């Protein structure tokens, strides 16, 4: 069951650190594929915005000659949102609180993205 495996990968990511609060896998056109979001987060809205941010980030990277986009990290007063491509058609969105160690967040998210890429391939 690929769906269950993807779900497991997301749950592994969120369980890996107390500071990682939620994760979702979104298609590049803004639809939810799988999610381990916190209660009260609106899946559909999160998915739509994730896809839009990623495509704009892509565009910004091109405009500013930074090359192929790899990750977008959005930092708010209370937490971080990390977006990265996972496979050709999906985006992994990881939501962490402010206490998270950024280095660890990048590593954990990368590992999950690789797992999911393999599952989607």
């Amino acid at each position, binding site marked *: 069951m690929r769906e269950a495996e993807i779900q497991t990968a997301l749950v592994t990511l969120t369980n890996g650190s107390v500071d990682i609060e*939620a994760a979702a896998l979104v298609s590049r056109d*803004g639809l939810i594929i799988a999610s381990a979001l*916190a209660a*009260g*987060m*609106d899946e559909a*809205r*999160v998915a*739509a*915005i*994730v*896809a*839009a*941010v990623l*495509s*704009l*980030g892509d*565009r*910004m*990277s091109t*405009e*500013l*000659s*930074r*090359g*192929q*986009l*790899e*990750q*977008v*990290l*959005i*930092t*708010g*007063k*209370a*937490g*971080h*949102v990390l977006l990265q491509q996972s496979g050709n058609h999906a985006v992994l*969105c990881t*939501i962490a609180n402010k206490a998270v160690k*950024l280095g660890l967040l990048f590593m954990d998210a990368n590992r999950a993205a690789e797992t999911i890429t393999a599952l989607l391939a």
Partner: protein
Amino acid sequence: MSGTGDRGALLNTLKKSSPELDGMALLTREGLVVAASLPPGCDEARSCAVTAAVEALSDAMAKEARCGALEQVLIRSHDGNAVVLRGREGAVFCALSGRSMQLGLLFINAARALDTVLSQHGNLLAAMPLEALVAEPEPAALEVPPAAAEPVLPEPDTLQPAAPEASVEPEPAAPEPAAEPAPEPGPAVAEVLVAKPEPLVPVLSVADQEILASIRDYITPYIPALTDRFYEVIEEEPQMGPYVKGRVEALKVTHSPWLTSLFSGDYGAEFARRQAEIGQAHVRANIPPVFVAASMSFLRLIFPPVIASCVVDPEQAEAATAALLRLLSYSQRLIDDKYAQVLERVDQTRQTRPGG
């Protein structure tokens, strides 16, 4: 303009503040360039437009993910990184680094550069609206360039002339517009708008309508963020704030669908009726006409960068922008018309008084 010298000084500060960075830009939240020093080959206007769009959308993302108000955005790419910071006074700051600079260092450098700019020019930025400092405003973004108006329009009286014409129009419609027969070929724009909203909007070509509908899917995700920002600005504005005080949340409920309706592709009778209704509601609520005018101007300012950033082909983006600006003018004219009717009643009373 007076901003030019100040801008020069700003740019100098920018360049000196952190030579390790690949590039920097200070821009308005609307995406207009205030001062920029970017790597060769980067288009300042486009870069800033897309940066502002990323900033606005990231803010929405942070809120949606319950991460609080946006502090910064990091764009990590294969050949380098970009960090976007929100400064005070409505400024957005973007700093670029090459692949070799560690992320931690980029954050520190970027924050320091922004600090330097704000500490040396904070008074200036606070004293004048950021827009006054904007480097040569992107022509396509602010006004409909004649080129974009195309021969599609019989009379290219798209923006400014329209509004006064409509409010001065001495013959504004029988109370029930439906009975009016079709006007003769080439009717005056105002006549058509006031008397008979059914025939399709003379100021919008079919191409205009199609292109607006075609970008709907790209624009929709921004609408909540745009509405939030719109009311944030209005609430803070001392003259306009009082009119929305205490009911912003309620107003947002109607504002978002209205913004969405601008991209419906259908601007016929129903659209016209809805604009008239909005006008009526504003008149009833005693909201002064300048409020509508200022709101529309604000939308004219914030939409172009958003469109530019989500429509890849620049020609398409320009055409879509021009179409949207025409549509906003059309909408404003329909809303204003309700005020015109109020004034007309006053005017008639005034004229009959001395005579009779």
